[in-house]
């Protein structure tokens, strides 16, 4: 099995989904001959032709809106939004149409579409290329929101997203696109969209995260292990619907929890996870929850982005406070 990067895994999953199902289409800006600005759609045009890989005009709103029309007609469009800072014009279509076509028509018309977009900072990009908008989508009923954190999970989760009968927003951490390689078997097996992943088992504290920050969280867990602290690391992966039980089970075991994400802390998905613990897992909590997240500031231009992104040091400091709490 070849070792591939996360972006290559995305590419592999797209190719697999397209090969398996003739209704799967890929569309977006520069997804064709250019193969996508990150090469996520590399080679697809050549392999599947220009009726299945469509370079669209530059207009995110109509990219989302035409996907609704295609999906209602039985296609499975996978739309790429080039960077997550340009995803906002899709919200109207996703909130007002895609997410509710099924319920509004009592199932007569449905909307099996995927909106993929690179997301997050840390690659010294230009303004608007480093946003983490997942929480806005996770608030919209009728959507699914998925964020992979490794090549294998990217492959399996993207296949699941494409096969899902309802609309999915799939946010790919740019920082991880080429950060590491992993063996990925192109077996066409989807991963479940209703379960979180335990990346590392542990007993002293639960670290909950998703996407790019899994990297810093796993590093922190390593550091902690060296100090004799056993941290359980959970990758939520599917942010909506959230696998509450997965998180609660871990917290029940450890009694302590730090939630880590890159998006601004206020009204981020971390808040929802903390709230669910406060509702259903309170009795197991031995210490206050902490969130280590992006500040409630605009994502800075890249010179300062490392001061914005949750660092291993910040995670460790939070973990130590939580562990010290009696």
């Amino acid at each position, binding site marked *: 099995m070849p070792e591939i990067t996360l972006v290559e895994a995305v590419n592999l999953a797209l190719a697999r989904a397209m090969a398996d199902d003739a209704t799967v289409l890929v569309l977006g800006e520069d997804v064709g001959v250019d193969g996508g600005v990150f090469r996520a759609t590399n080679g697809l045009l050549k392999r599947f032709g220009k009726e299945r890989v469509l370079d669209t*005009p530059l207009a995110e709103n109509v990219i989302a*809106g035409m996907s609704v*029309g295609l999906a209602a007609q039985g296609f499975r469009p996978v739309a790429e939004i080039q960077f997550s800072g340009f995803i906002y014009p899709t919200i109207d279509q996703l909130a007002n149409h895609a997410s509710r076509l*099924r319920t509004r028509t*009592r*199932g007569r018309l449905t909307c099996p579409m995927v909106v993929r977009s690179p997301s997050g900072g840390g690659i010294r990009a230009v303004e608007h290329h480093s946003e983490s908008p997942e929480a806005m989508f996770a608030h919209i009923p009728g959507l699914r929101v998925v964020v992979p954190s490794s090549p294998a999970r990217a492959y399996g989760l993207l296949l699941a997203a494409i096969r899902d009968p309802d609309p999915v927003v799939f946010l790919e951490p740019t920082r991880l696109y080429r950060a590491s390689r992993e063996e990925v078997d192109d077996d066409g097996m989807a991963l479940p969209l*209703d379960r979180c992943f335990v990346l590392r088992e542990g007993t002293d504290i639960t670290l909950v995260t998703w996407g790019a920050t899994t990297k810093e969280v796993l590093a922190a867990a390593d550091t902690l292990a060296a100090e004799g602290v056993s941290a359980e690391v959970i990758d939520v992966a599917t942010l909506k619907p959230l696998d509450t039980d997965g998180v609660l089970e871990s917290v029940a075991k450890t009694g302590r929890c730090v939630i880590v994400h890159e998006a601004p802390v206020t009204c981020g998905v971390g808040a929802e996870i903390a709230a669910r613990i406060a509702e259903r897992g309170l009795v197991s909590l031995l210490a206050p929850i902490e969130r280590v997240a992006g500040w409630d500031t605009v994502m800075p231009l890249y010179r300062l982005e490392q001061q914005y992104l949750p660092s291993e040091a910040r995670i460790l400091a939070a973990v130590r406070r939580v562990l010290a709490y009696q």
Partner: protein
Amino acid sequence: MPSAERIEELLETRRDVGATPVARFEIRYSRYLDPKGNPVRPLPDFARDPGELVSLYRGMVLARRFDAKAVALQRTGRLGTFASSLGQEAVSVGVASAMRADDVLLPSFREHGGQLLRGVSPVELLLFWGGDERGSDFAEACEDFPVCVPVGTHAPHAVGVALAFKLRREKRVAACIFGDGATSKGDVAEALNVAGVWNLPAVFLINNNHWAISVPVSQQTAAETLAQKAISAGIEGEQVDGNDVIAVREATARALAKARAGGGPHLIEALTYRLGDHTTADDASRYRSGPDVSAHWAEDPITRLRNYLVAERLWGKTDEEKLLGEVSGAIERAAETYLATPPQGPETIFDYTYERLPKDLVEQREAALGAVQR
């Protein structure tokens, strides 16, 4: 009188006469019957068949009856806010009459006439306006889109539908109707542009009733016609008398045939007038005068076609009475069925959110059912 400085500046800005023309465009307007119902030019072929004309007439009468009933139900608290199409019936009836059954209609919220003609039942429409999702689960016209409430957001859907037809090599067309106000929205511009560059089988129809709630077209855009919105997208646009159902049908039929044959999208601006309030929640007297509106009654599409039919001896008093009786009966029966339809249970709030209900929602569903029982 402009100041001397201003005049000088204006002179300075005279058009650059030395420049070379590189593209020319023209917008045309067509009408077959004048407001009195007199033909102003030879009628199109289909109009030689009296059955066709009568069915257009019936479609408009049905729409108006439906409207009146819906407004009455709203006024008596038995229907939600409703958007009447009074005086504009020729638009969507003309469009729908030109469509094939397997084309797809993407209507805005004011096109009941066309929806009824497509086979959407008056009960379904009442259910929708009565706040019940079953109203969009059409038993016929199964691929048609539900009423689009946000202005213009269905134009991108039409692009997707048309693309689906093109990719499957089906000879079908997506027909999308929206108002004059919608032409200000980026959604419409983006959709026209994509339909144009991909040469998609989509027909866009502007129901220009001259008002977007309180905003007249003159405050909506400086464009001389709305049909010229097509020029930006490099597609063909034309204007028709939207109170002449023959003109609407003929222009739509031509556009559909062109699209079906691979000739690409088309934009039709149908000029009509909103005789009523914007919706039952609106009071148009706040922003436009009664006399101005009254004048437009002289353009009424129903009277116009009837005048023609009568003049051609294709229609008489008994026909009219029979039709009215039949249409009223159908609408009354629909209203009764609507009123007798019990609401759905609260579980239906949940059951169509996803194909498979996630665990969170299973729990919330139970809580909701519990709350109702309590």
